[in-house]
């Protein structure tokens, strides 16, 4: 969460000779990140990112206190000079509204009735609000915003006469209740929101988030109810996100702030009403405070401080730093006993939190950078899944494929199979990202579709798909998928890519088998590796299981002594019947002699297939006479088995 802090305003709480750029730099290194400093006229504005654990820094007061602690460590004098506004006078008129609080909803309420004169704020205040990014409206409303920015506790103001009630019940909203916020927008509540009810069932405030139109300060407001509430942060977050109302008050309140801070804000508010709206306190102050802020002590081992930071920090330095941040420190034996200020009590809980305070203010930039020595009890094989992943991707790249990276989230129509079997999101961002994919193919086809100006596309992806399991996380399986689009693309082109890929991965015993639809099923041994799918004359895709690839992939090579005697080659052409598989023929040829080293399809014209046969013996030169015998055997076998004739 970002906050704009005005330099001149800050200096009302901080006394330091440090220039703006120094303050910005030092704060960034040791406390909060000053994203930007901007000069407008005579003013410098710090744009500060406050982390969600430090809502106490969402104010001039908070930043001034931090700066007064961190600047001196860098050798710059700095002193916190904020003063709490005077006590609020208590006239002899009791507070006229009976407020029924629910301690589970609200930690503390402070309220008072004041007479005011409404009008524009003085220039100084309206300027500061504007430079802080806050809209200024009139003096009565401006005070609430001014106090929130200065002290850090949100406040609210009602038109007391418009409110016109003797009773205010703080309760949870019921589902379906409606209200109109002060900016005129209508909302229907989901239930469980913290609201104030005037005892007649009418909602008069959406606590901690925004006021309602029926009680808002008017141009002619005479009497106000100045009202501060400190609420249950979880409920505030829920309501604010549900309704989409992200006011600064809501953003601060949902983080939770110390109710102790309320008093300072309350007094400052009353003081400002007196100063700029001729405000006059007309009733006693109401203070309902069921959930007092608590604090605690933390014991920190001195040795632990040094070992976690990595260098030795002098004990005195640690004590100084903590004290300047508002902690109370006592050294006992080998440890520090640290009392946490209430404003930090919700987030400083363990010794490491204290060590963080010491280390950051000491300065992370003063610590050395040392790569820790190698020390591991785990040895990782070189050829692991990541090795093969990279090898496969590179192979495909050098064969002209481009890698796509599609979302794992898909629409219903991109799911392959009955949608009931899909892993479904409960809260999808959009309809086209409602399910987890179970195949990469639909995504790749979409990519091809979206690049339709290209006549020729070769793409692939190696990524997870997800399969639903009962009572367990889905099964995540890496798939290697690809597609080629080109006029007249051949099945053999994709098949060749897969064959070559498997060969490069040391896999030999693969088989392509016919499947019901155009394409092929692919097996390694008895494991189904995946498939090739011919979608049309110009589009073919494939999907392979990376898991099965990994199971068989190896870099191991088997060395066979290089043949001493040269091979002999021969081509035989058979005219084969329809439907006779090349592989069946080559297998049959191989069976004819152990001197046949290799058989491959060399050429094909209609039904005539030419086989290239390599003969080789390990121990001698083969003679033509031997070859003639084998050749005759081959011709006989093939002719008989497949009713083929030699051409």
């Amino acid at each position, binding site marked *: 969460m970002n906050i704009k802090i005005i330099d001149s305003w800050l200096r009302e709480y901080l006394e330091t000779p440090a220039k703006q750029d120094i303050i910005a730099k030092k704060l960034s290194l040791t406390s909060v990140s000053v994203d930007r400093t901007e000069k407008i006229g005579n003013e410098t504005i710090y744009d500060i990112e406050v982390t969600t654990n430090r809502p106490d820094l969402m104010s001039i007061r908070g930043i001034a206190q931090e700066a007064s602690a961190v600047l001196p460590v860098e050798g710059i004098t700095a002193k916190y000079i904020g003063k709490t506004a005077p006590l609020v006078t208590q006239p002899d008129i009791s507070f006229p509204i009976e407020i029924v609080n629910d301690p589970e909803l609200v930690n503390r309420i402070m309220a008072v009735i004041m007479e005011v004169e409404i009008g524009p704020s003085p220039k100084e205040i309206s300027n500061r609000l504007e430079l802080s990014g806050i809209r200024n409206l009139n003096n009565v409303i401006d005070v609430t915003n001014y106090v929130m920015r200065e002290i850090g506790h949100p406040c609210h103001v009602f038109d007391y006469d418009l409110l016109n009630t003797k009773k205010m019940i703080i309760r949870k909203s019921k589902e379906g209740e409606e209200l109109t916020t002060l900016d005129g927008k209508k909302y229907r509540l989901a239930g469980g929101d913290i609201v104030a009810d005037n005892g007649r069932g009418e909602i008069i405030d959406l606590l901690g988030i925004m006021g309602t139109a029926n009680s808002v300060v008017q141009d002619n407001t005479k009497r106000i109810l100045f009202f501060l509430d400190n609420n249950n942060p979880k409920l505030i977050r829920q309501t604010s996100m549900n309704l989409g109302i992200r006011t600064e008050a809501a953003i601060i309140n949902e983080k939770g702030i110390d109710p102790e801070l309320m008093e300072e804000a309350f007094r400052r508010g009353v003081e400002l009403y007196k100063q700029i709206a001729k405000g006059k306190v007309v009733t006693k102050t109401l203070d309902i405070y069921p959930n007092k802020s608590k604090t605690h002590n933390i014991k920190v081992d001195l040795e632990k401080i040094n070992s*976690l*930071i990595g260098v030795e920090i002098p004990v005195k330095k640690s004590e100084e730093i903590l004290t300047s941040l508002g902690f109370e420190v006592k050294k006992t034996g080998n440890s520090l006993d640290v009392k946490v200020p209430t404003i930090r009590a919700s987030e400083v809980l363990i010794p490491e939190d204290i060590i963080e305070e010491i280390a950051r203010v000491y300065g*992370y930039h003063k*610590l050395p950078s040392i790569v820790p020595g*190698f020390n591991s009890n785990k040895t*990782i094989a070189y050829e692991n899944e990541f090795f093969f992943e990279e090898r496969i991707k590179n192979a495909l790249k*050098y064969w002209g494929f481009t890698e796509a990276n599609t979302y794992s989230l898909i629409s219903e129509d991109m799911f392959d199979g009955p949608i009931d079997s899909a892993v*479904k999101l409960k809260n999808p961002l959009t309809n086209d990202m409602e399910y987890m994919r179970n195949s990469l193919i639909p995504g790749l086809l979409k990519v091809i579709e979206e690049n339709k100006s*290209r006549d020729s596309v070769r793409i692939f992806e190696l990524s997870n798909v997800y399969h639903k399991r009962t009572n367990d996380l889905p099964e995540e399986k890496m798939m290697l998928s690809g597609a080629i689009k080109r006029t007249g693309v051949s099945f053999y082109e994709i098949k060749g890519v897969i064959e070559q890929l498997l060969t490069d991965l040391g896999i030999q015993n693969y088989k392509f088998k016919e499947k019901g639809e155009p394409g092929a099923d692919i097996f390694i041994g008895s494991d189904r590796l995946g498939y090739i799918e011919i979608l049309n004359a110009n589009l073919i895709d494939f999907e392979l299981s990376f898991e099965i690839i990994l199971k068989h992939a190896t870099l191991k090579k088997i060395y066979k002594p290089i043949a001493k005697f040269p091979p002999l080659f021969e081509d035989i052409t058979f005219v084969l019947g329809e439907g006779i598989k090349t592989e069946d023929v080559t297998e049959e040829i191989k069976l004819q002699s152990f001197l046949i080293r290799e058989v491959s399809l060399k050429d094909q014209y209609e039904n005539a297939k030419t086989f290239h046969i390599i003969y080789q013996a390990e121990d001698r030169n083969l003679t033509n006479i031997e070859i003639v015998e084998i050749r005759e055997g081959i011709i006989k076998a093939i002719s008989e088995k497949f009713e083929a004739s030699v051409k």
Partner: protein
Amino acid sequence: MEDELIRIKNNAISMILDTNDPKELEEIKLQFLGRNGKLTAAMKKLPKINPSMRKEVGILANEVKETIEDAIKDKTHETKTLHTKANTKKIDVTNPGIKPPLGHLHPITQAISEISSIFERIGFTRVRYPEVEWDWYSFGALNFPEGHPARDDWETFFIDTKPSAKYGPMLLTPHTSSGQIREMENNKPPIRMLNIAKTFRRQSDVSHTPVFHQFETLFVAEKASITDLKGVLDYFTKAYFGHDRESRIRPYHFEFTEPSFEVDVSCGICKGKGCKLCKEGWLEMGGAGMVHPNVLKNAGIDPTKYSGFASGWGVERVLMMKEGLEIDDLRLLYSNKLDFLEQF
């Protein structure tokens, strides 16, 4: 005799195939077919053999002679054209070459492999853990309190299924930090993990994509310290972005680390002086911190004995920072437009 003839043939053929030199071919011809050549010598023995076999051997000898002559003729022709072409044909060196195919790896993949090799050099081993996770691994064990904003429906994707009694709701992990718990459950310190994975968050705008990638380091050892973390971050910064770049850590807040840091890298454009592209000379890179003792405990590691550090950054972010890519809409990275991918 037959064997000798076959040997002569094979010998001659392999020599002929091996050469591209016309002079050498001439010599081979002499060696086999010349007056004192090997084949000529063998043929001279013909009359001495058994008459019953003489005819058959004679045919074979002639076959061998023809084969060798043909091979020499073919080769002579081949070498001639080879030489003429090389010597005489004009080439236009500005014509396009005949290129082997070349595709492109996705820039994210390229970044991941760079990141992996850098961390590998200092002993970090890459792992892979579930993308669809239980609340426990993504939030609970990482010390996120109940009701933390990240755990609500606005920020994290949840799976439409029954929650686990033990691990809570099922979700798409919004960060690679879930891998910290998985890693520590499965391994004893010392641990040096690098977890790179897809992560998911419920937002999509010019600077966010609902699916993105993170890389997470986890180091757990006795007395692991902030100076160790700084060492590793600095090593990565210099190795990935360049030796003249520096890193720094600033206070920040995360639920699962204590202390927590925001890591900056000095701006490569202005070299740390401050310019339009950076914040006062620095660019934000991502988060890091010392592993929160509750996280160690939740993963079964004794926080009184061990400490650790972790960092988790966006792959997209470091990629854009390194390449100085000025992509005005991050979603372009996942558009799968070939016009984009082919630039990498």
